[in-house]
């Protein structure tokens, strides 16, 4: 009988078998961890849906908050959040992308710029409540913008700027140097190169970063409470200088009440918040697919 020594490619090598076992053990471990994360999220969603589905109807979406759970709705908070997100996008995206473009394409690698880069990375890790304090001091009081949508949007923009800048820089870095050289060799200036080639080529990556940042902004509560987003608003804002509430504030408010019905209302509001988030993400994916081609 021919034993293993004859055939170098057989699988009876014990050392090799041990390595295979290790590999499969590790990959099952990774799969388990991944599955646990997804399962927890699914459980959470399930719980929220069970609690919240009861109150979720058109009336909930079109009513102002009320003392009576049956008449309470999310309208002012939903509109407030949409206002807020639009303003944040208008403020934070141009500033964030321009900063990233400057740092990657234009700035000299000197000490000042390294200091700026270091600070931006650090700012990404600052707790959101601290931004709330800055917003209160700077925008609400310092610039006398009152407890308005614009104060909230400016504060939130500060909060998410580091995220946008870091993500955009990473996206810009992935654009091959050869594309820039091709443009320069045709007599293009740095600005023409950045605008016509670097920015379009890094757009999908920038968009991903922007969506991540806006998703963070949409769910933040602490800074808004700090700068005085209201908890009971029975009107819709007409412009950026009006006072406002937002969905996370409304959810926080409802959860804090003793009655069980309000807890269910909070769950309904969470579903609406998640829906808004999903729509934003879907829009980003559609835009990205359109531009990638």
């Amino acid at each position, binding site marked *: 009988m021919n034993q293993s020594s004859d055939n170098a490619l057989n699988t009876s090598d014990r050392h090799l078998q041990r390595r295979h076992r290790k590999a499969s053990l590790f990959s099952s471990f990774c799969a388990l961890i991944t599955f646990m994360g997804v399962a927890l999220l699914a459980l959470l969603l399930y719980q929220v849906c069970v609690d919240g589905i009861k109150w979720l109807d058109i009336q909930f979406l079109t009513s102002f908050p009320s003392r009576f759970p049956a008449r309470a709705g999310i309208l002012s908070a939903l509109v407030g959040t949409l206002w807020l997100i639009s303003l944040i996008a208008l403020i934070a995206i141009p500033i964030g992308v321009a900063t990233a473009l400057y740092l990657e394409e234009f700035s000299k690698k000197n000490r000042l710029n390294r200091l700026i880069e270091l600070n931006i990375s650090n700012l990404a890790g600052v707790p959101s409540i601290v931004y709330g304090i800055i917003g209160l001091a700077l925008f609400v009081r310092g610039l006398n913008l009152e407890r308005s949508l614009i104060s909230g949007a400016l504060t939130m923009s500060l909060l998410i700027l580091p995220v946008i800048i870091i993500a955009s820089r990473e996206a810009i870095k992935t654009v091959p140097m050869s594309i820039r*050289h091709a443009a320069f060799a*045709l007599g293009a200036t740095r600005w023409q190169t950045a605008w016509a080639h670097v920015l379009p080529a890094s757009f999908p990556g920038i968009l991903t970063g922007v969506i991540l940042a806006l998703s963070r902004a949409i769910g933040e509560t602490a800074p808004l409470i700090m700068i005085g987003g209201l908890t009971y608003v029975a009107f819709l804002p007409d412009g950026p200088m009006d006072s406002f509430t937002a969905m996370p504030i409304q959810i926080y408010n409802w959860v804090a009440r003793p009655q069980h019905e309000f807890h269910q209302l909070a769950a309904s509001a969470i579903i609406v918040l998640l829906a808004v988030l999903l729509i934003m993400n879907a829009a980003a994916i559609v835009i990205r697919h359109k531009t990638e081609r």
Partner: protein
Amino acid sequence: MSAQLDEKLMIPGQREQAANNKPAFAEESILNLDQVNIYYSGKAAIKEVSFPIAKQKITSLIGPSGCGKSTLLRSLNRMNDFIPEVTMDGLFTYNGQNLNAPSVDPVEVRRHIGMVFQKPNPFPKTIYKNIAWGPNINGYQKSLDELVEHSLKQAALWDEVKDRLHESALSLSGGQQQRLCIARALAMEPDILLMDEPCSALDPISTAHIEDLLFELKTRYTIVIVTHNMQQAARISDYTAFLESGELIEFGVTEQLFTMPQKQRTEEYVTGRFG
């Protein structure tokens, strides 16, 4: 003629002659290198190199890897400006002007001295936009459609792409992409076309295409080409500069340099005994 040429060009210290385009060299030169030094972080990569570049001829730069020929080529249209560690001195006289003079705008230099890179690097846009973008940003007034067609015809690519001008340039094969890059450079109507090993990433058929193209082009353009391929240099170029360790070992008429090199090192290199 060539003996005289070699003698005149090889002897160091011919500064005046090179700078003033004296007839040391039987051709009309469009660009003159005079005592050029290029440093990477202070370390010399090109040492005291002087030679002229003949108008509407092909000049090839040959030499072993790392001899500085690509660095030298990039210095001819200020592409080294993007590498902060690179500094240089010496004179690059182009139409009577020093390319490195403070008053010279590098963007302007690159409009007149185009470049084709080692690896094809089309923009991730349509074939049409690849060609039209350069002239467009530089204020080209006439019909872009005609210019695109003309440039693609010059690069012998028109027949292959005329029905798909608005498809992505990335859908082309490597050889087609490189010809597109050549067409893109030609659309700027440059005085000089610099080519950094343009065939090194291509198969022999694409290489033959591009070599044929270069023959066509030299009736209208001045071409400086870096190549690792001895046969290619011998086949296509009129003048050849052989560099080693940053020094110009020999410059001369290509045929002369390959058949009767003046220097031992040149002979060893071109016959394949080293490098």
